């Protein structure tokens, strides 16, 4: 589950700034789009699981690459968290690849973009036993921290133990919950009072081996092991919250200097051995992150590429929407653009506690004007028409369009009217519509209002301050009928999409089931599918369940598959894309000599 960082910063966008944000729901922000041309055709990766051979270093050479130079990153925000334990959002996920290594990681082929999961610190993606309840990882030889001390399985275990401390509130919580259950903090409070996680939960029989004993089967444990927080932390260097400013590197770079919100400079970590690393090429000698560069100035700088901007990229932020027209139509930028899927699906949530008749929900679905909304959203380069609740970046994704939206992308008003009649609606039916008060969502709201009014709805639009948008629509007693949210998978499996957004048990303020769907069939299916140990079969089952929800519950109307669009300096080569994170992949980048 991931929400874009825009949850925090969406209003900043409204000032003519940001597109960035955290993983889980794509934010409430965004500038106004001018349409623009269609972007490059995005590709869908298959996200297979690699073998032990795939997990061996060094990473395959990138054609034409050379070592040396400084690569620059221009970033609209700063990094709230450099502590891998607290990292979850897209910009943090991308930057941590430079200095942090997890048990597993994503290996991206620089030529084809094919993405597979391989062992990073571990020799492979893990060996399961006990019906996928137990997972064993063996660390590679030659792994060291930046100070030269060896990385052991006990350092990995300690890194996980500190995730239980009270101050660790930001990072993923999968492993913690899989070990102890949802109330994991009550069972174990972290290592700072001298207690360790017992061996029947996490065992380290020797310095190379770490064994996880989960309460339930978890076929997708190898993916969870790729999250930044499943990484080693040296106990002697851990000063709790303050570790955030000086995480100890295991990757190819270490922090040379850091001015929060202004500048972050990485230099080579001489204790990183490329032979142990199948993922990172680490061509530049250093990385210089310039933080807090407001839009549209940031996009202008990348386009103009004056001075060092020639070697600059924006790892996680998309181009300012106001520049889309120029960047997508002017041929001079074509060779410098990246336009790929992000893991987010934009949906209109229908509050099922307020609109209880599925026929009315389907009427909204049929009336929804996808093409017009796409234009208001920023055009094809920023988002592709989407008709599934899962993103194409999820393994096992297939096209599915039960309401024929792609055949009638401008909306089927007549069908909507027919359904309302069947539902016994006479006259106009009131529909309260909340939207984040930013240029992008203002435009979208006007477009949607127009179409729904034609179908027979009396739309009451309500602008919500972007900083409180998710708070307002996430309340169980929210007074709104429809509102937009966005969601993306944490890894290429729908196990991080379907349960958090569709499980109706334990509904509460602030959870991520924004439609408040509570369908017993869905709830029981979630439990059944979670127990499936064959990951491929599980992926297919998730897809089938999401299709059921779309067709029968229609609690969400998917309309856009978000896409990353940005340009980079012509002085950089090997610019590949990480579809799992929805960011540029820094591992293959090199500075043209």
């Amino acid at each position, binding site marked *: 589950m991931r929400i874009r960082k825009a949850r925090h910063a969406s209003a*900043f966008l409204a000032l003519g700034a940001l597109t960035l944000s*955290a993983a889980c729901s794509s934010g409430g922000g965004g500038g106004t789009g001018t349409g623009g041309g269609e972007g490059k055709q995005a590709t869908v990766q298959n996200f297979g699981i690699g073998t032990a051979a795939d997990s061996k270093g060094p990473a395959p050479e990138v054609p034409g690459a050379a070592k040396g130079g400084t690569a620059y990153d221009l970033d609209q925000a700063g990094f709230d968290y450099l502590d891998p334990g607290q990292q979850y959002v897209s910009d943090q996920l991308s930057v941590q690849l430079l200095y942090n290594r997890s048990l597993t990681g994503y290996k991206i082929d620089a030529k084809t973009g094919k993405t597979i999961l391989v062992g990073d610190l571990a020799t492979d993606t893990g060996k399961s036993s006990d019906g996928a309840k137990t997972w064993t990882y063996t660390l590679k030889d030659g792994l060291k921290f930046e100070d030269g001390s060896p990385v052991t399985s006990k350092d990995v275990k300690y890194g996980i133990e500190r995730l239980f401390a*009270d101050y660790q509130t930001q990072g993923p919580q999968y492993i913690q919950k899989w070990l102890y259950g949802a109330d994991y903090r009550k069972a174990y409070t972290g290592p700072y009072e001298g207690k360790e996680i017992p061996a029947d939960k996490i065992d380290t029989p020797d310095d190379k081996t770490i064994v996880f004993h989960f309460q339930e089967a978890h076929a997708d444990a190898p993916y969870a092991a790729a999250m930044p927080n499943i990484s080693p932390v040296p106990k002697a260097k851990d000063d709790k*919250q303050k570790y955030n400013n000086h995480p100890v590197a295991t990757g190819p770079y270490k922090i040379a200097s850091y001015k929060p919100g202004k500048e972050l400079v990485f230099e080579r970590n001489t204790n990183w051995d490329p032979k142990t690393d199948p993922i990172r090429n680490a061509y530049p000698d250093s990385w210089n992150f310039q933080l807090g*560069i407001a839009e549209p*100035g940031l996009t202008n700088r990348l386009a103009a590429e004056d001075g060092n901007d020639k070697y600059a990229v924006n790892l996680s932020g998309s181009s300012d929407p106001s520049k889309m027209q120029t960047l997508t139509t002017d041929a001079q930028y074509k060779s410098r653009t990246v336009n790929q899927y992000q893991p987010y699906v934009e949906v209109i949530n229908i509050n099922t506690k307020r609109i209880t008749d599925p026929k009315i929900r389907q009427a909204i679905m049929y009336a929804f004007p996808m093409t017009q909304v796409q234009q208001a959203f920023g055009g094809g380069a920023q988002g592709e028409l989407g008709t599934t609740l899962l993103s194409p970046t999820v393994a096992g994704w297939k096209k599915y369009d039960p309401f024929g939206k792609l055949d009638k992308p401008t909306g089927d008003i007549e069908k909507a009217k027919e359904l309302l009649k069947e539902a016994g609606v006479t006259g106009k039916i009131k529909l309260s519509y909340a939207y984040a008060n930013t240029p992008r969502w203002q435009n979208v709201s006007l477009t949607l209002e127009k179409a729904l009014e034609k179908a027979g709805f009396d739309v009451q639009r309500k602008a919500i301050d972007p900083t409180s948008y998710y708070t307002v629509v996430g309340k169980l007693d929210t007074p709104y009928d429809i509102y937009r949210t966005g969601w993306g998978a944490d890894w290429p499996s729908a196990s991080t999409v379907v349960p958090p957004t569709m499980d109706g048990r334990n509904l509460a303020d602030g959870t*991520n089931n924004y439609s408040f769907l509570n369908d017993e069939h869905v709830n029981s299916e979630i439990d059944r599918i979670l127990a499936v140990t064959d990951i491929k079969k599980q992926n297919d089952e998730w897809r089938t369940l999401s299709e059921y929800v779309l067709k029968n519950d229609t609690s969400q109307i998917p309309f856009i598959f978000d896409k990353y669009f940005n340009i980079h300096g012509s002085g950089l080569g090997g610019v590949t894309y990480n579809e799992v994170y929805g960011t540029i992949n820094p591992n293959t980048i090199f500075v043209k000599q």
Partner: protein
Amino acid sequence: MLRFLVRRVLGALVILLLISAITYFLFFFLPSDPALLSCGKNCSPQNVALIRKNLGLDLPIWTQYWHFMVGIFAGRDMPIGHCPAPCFGYSFADQQLVWDTIADRYPTTLSLAIGGATVFLCVGVGLGLVSAWQQGRAFDRIASGVSLVGNSVQIYFLGPIAIGLFASSWHVLDRGHDPDWSHDPWGSVQGLILPCMVLSVIFWSNYSRQTRSLMVEQMSEDHIRAARAKGMSSRYVFLRYALRGAAASIITIFGIDLSAVLGGAIITEVTFGLHGLGLLSVQAVLRSDLPLEMAVMLIGATIIVVCNIVVDAAYALIDPRIRLS
């Protein structure tokens, strides 16, 4: 003068206390919940409650305010660690010590404000003086036209054009960067030239028009005619008597404009990507970062209040008719 200063300083302290209280309590009337904003992807009720506790938001508002105000003068111990005085706490958003962030950012804003004010005072007042001297002639008419145009443009419009022309196309000026006075003073000057020029434009045009108008008005006063009748040269009378008469008004306007300069600095910083207090304040508000909001608000208010006291005191020095008591 001393009684005046004591009275004004005491009044300023009351004003700052009121500002701090209003800002602090207004924050809690907003619908935005910083704990929810900070919970990212883990918004379970338990996690939100934990974050609220970590941020100290689980305490009564009055207690929170009291702790905050005490911390400014005495420092305080917080969950992250000790926060020495002047303690504004740790940022809700990135957990950095707020005072460290302020200390890191204020040189940029101060440099920009001083540089911009220097430029607009020199250019604006200078142009106004020459225009008044050349009243009715070509220079006066051209200067009035240019001032009118300058008064109409905005920083966010002029800034990108200036960057495009001077930095990207002609490569004659730096596109603007944060100053680093201790390590690279000349580079700091270069990095501030364009931002200061742009910031000053909206002000100098106004000062030019005001100065011209005040000087023309002064030149028609009886004491000026009397001085001329005594045989003093036009230039001497213009600079010695008329300018002195106009100066008090110009200083008054400058005092009022101080807050506008800081406001202009915010937009200039965003336009040029400078990391100053202006950009910081925008980020603090948009992220519901209460400690940072409070620090920026109080420091900004303190600067404006102090500058106004200084301006008031300056009246007495310039105009002997004014007596401060």
